[in-house]
């Protein structure tokens, strides 16, 4: 499967900091990709280079096999920035049409697509209202529509769920899945790790302008697993002393253990089977992305960073 996007050694330096300091990664077509990182890590700068708003100081962006051409590739990309905003006094229908035309759609194409999406998300009555008449959740929904209207190959969503109630969040999530199935690639930038775990295939974690993690969610969890297991037993065993594991926690009949080097899960199971204890549940505890994130990033975020001149 080929890549929709390849970033090669991107660099962007500002006077007081290295916002993006040599970052490279690839994004496969059709995947749902998570771009993670603490505040000030360089995510927004990276996204702006991908969308052509900023130009990198060094490095290049390869879009769909070719050198990225901001002017002509604009129509193939949809970008919903974290700074959410629309023209307040403009009528909604007009505004969506205007934005679609700016992307490069013809008027008739745009109108067709607007009708489709408005119907799908039950926004038909909004056409003549002004943006300032909408509630926050409604305007988020509207902004989402303007981002995906032209069925772009690459959709970039920066904190798409912020401010949405669970119902609307779910609606957007379903739309994201649908778009992905229809062949669009989605880049998701967020702090909400539980959503990342749920939705993304592949993630990249950046901090202080550098890439820290790059892999599928499953692989990364494997990478950081601590060999922790949870086992629920029917009876209390005679002994739980075993040199193959370390008991971490016990709650009634459920034991959380850490299996030591050289031993594996089967050894743990055999230990209990040998005592003729009925095993009711047994599973590996993989670290949550949240935990991994905190572990990697704690103490290094921009909150604790000093401003230093760039050499």
């Amino acid at each position: 499967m080929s890549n929709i996007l390849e970033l090669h050694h991107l660099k962007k330096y500002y006077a007081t900091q290295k916002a993006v300091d040599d970052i490279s990664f690839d994004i496969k077509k059709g995947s749902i990709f998570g771009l993670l990182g603490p505040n000030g890590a360089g995510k927004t700068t990276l996204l702006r280079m991908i969308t052509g708003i900023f130009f990198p100081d060094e490095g290049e962006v390869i879009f769909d096999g070719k050198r990225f051409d901001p002017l002509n590739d604009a129509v193939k990309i949809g970008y919903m920035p974290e700074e959410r905003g629309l023209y307040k006094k403009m009528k909604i229908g007009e505004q969506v049409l205007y934005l679609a035309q700016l992307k490069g759609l013809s008027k008739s194409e745009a109108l067709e697509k607007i009708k489709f999406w408005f119907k799908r998300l039950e926004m038909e009555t909004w056409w003549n209202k002004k943006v300032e008449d909408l509630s926050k959740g409604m305007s988020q929904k509207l902004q989402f529509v303007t981002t995906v209207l032209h069925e772009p190959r690459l959709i970039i969503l920066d904190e798409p769920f912020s401010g949405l109630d669970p119902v609307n969040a779910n609606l957007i999530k379903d739309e994201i899945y649908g778009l992905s199935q229809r062949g669009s690639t989605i880049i998701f930038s967020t702090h909400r790790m539980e959503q990342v775990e749920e939705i993304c295939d592949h993630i990249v974690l950046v901090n202080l302008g550098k890439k820290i993690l790059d892999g599928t969610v499953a692989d990364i969890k494997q990478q950081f697993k601590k060999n922790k297991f949870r086992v629920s037993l029917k009876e209390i065993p005679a002994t739980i002393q075993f040199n193959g594991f370390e008991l971490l926690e016990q709650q009634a009949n459920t034991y959380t253990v850490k299996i030591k080097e050289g031993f594996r899960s089967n050894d743990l199971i055999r230990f209990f089977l040998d005592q003729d204890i009925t095993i009711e549940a047994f599973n590996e505890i993989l670290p949550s992305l949240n935990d991994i994130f905190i572990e990697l990033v704690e103490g290094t975020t921009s909150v604790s960073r000093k401003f230093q001149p760039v050499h």
Partner: protein
Amino acid sequence: MNKILLVARREFLSRVQKKTFLLTTILLPLLIFGFYALIIYFSVKSGDNLHIAVADEANILDGTIHSKEDMNFELVKNQTAETLNTALETKKYDGYIFIPATYELMGKDSLQLKSSKAIGIMTREKIQKSFNDILEEKRLLSLHISKAQLDSIQNNANRIKFATVSGKTDDDSKAGVSYIVGYISGFLIYIILFIYGSMVMRGVMEEKVSRIAEVIISSVKPFQLMMGKITGIGAVGLVQFIIWIVLVFGLQLLLPLIFPDLLNQMHGQPIQPAGIQAAQAIKDNGGMTEIMRSFSQINFPLIIGCFIFYFLGGYLLYSSLFAAVGSAVNEDPQDAQSLMLPITMPIIFAIVIMTKAVNEPNSGLAIFGSLFPLTSPIVMMARIAHGIPDGVSLWELILSMVLLIAGFIATTWLAAKIYRTGILMYGKKPTWKEMWKWAVRKS
């Protein structure tokens, strides 16, 4: 190019479709016109008819006195100061002039007018003029100069006629009309630059305030967005301007009714001396017909052509500067005001130079002002009104135009660089030094 037009169209339509657009476009000039008309009317309109008694004890007036427009002079006999005072109190007269028996016609004593109420300055001037005309006549007659002789001395038929080396003789009224045309067109451009310049600035701030800047910039280049806004708002200005011209032509039908009276009133009023000269020149040369003839002496196609050029050039130059400022500020209107100041200064400076250039189109200051791109749109209009080559030589005009074009290309280029950085930057207000850095940094 297409995207610039898209943006321009949106800017244009969003302003023109507002209900308030037609309202302000039509109402505003009507209000201003009405305002000025009222001011002029009140300032020149005399008070009520004044009834002034003249007690001529020295008998210098020979028993005759003629009243002027709204001043009734009445000769009275056998009155004293006291009886006249009583007459004032009973409102028989509004005031009196007591010429004592000892008064000498050719002497240096001045007369006094006592009135029941304070008399305003305009009316005093009128009384001065009226009465002193009478006295002057009497004095000349006592020197045995007849009225006919008097008139022939004062005949203006031998006035010096002015002509330039190019050979054409022109009337004084042409100078007067040039003055007015130059003044008005210069002032018009001044107003246009201010109004539409700040409209561009506010328009540019709109993307930042609604936080839609990033979304738009992901679809169009910052330069396209900036030019789209400048073009769109310029188009709005053009439409408003055309509506105003139509209105003014309509109001012109009312003007001749007011004008002749105005000129008479203005004569003798303490208004700007230069304006008086112009008005005097026009009046002495026969009023409206002369004006019409002078208008034909003025090269209107040239003036209109230049006006359009300088209006466009000046707008492009200044609106890009205003756009640069608008992109740098962050929603706080006070920041916008303070950054706006350095840009508005050359415009005001231009008006100052213009007031000199209308009178002396070939002075050093006028020449400089008409060539320097930041001031030329306003100053050159003042010079052009005098025509070529009287007011400005052809090569100067061409040089000025070339410089203006170079000027607005330079400011647009500069503004685009500031705009592209400023529009995405939130947070602290940048200093001029920072903005300069954005401008020179390579993209």
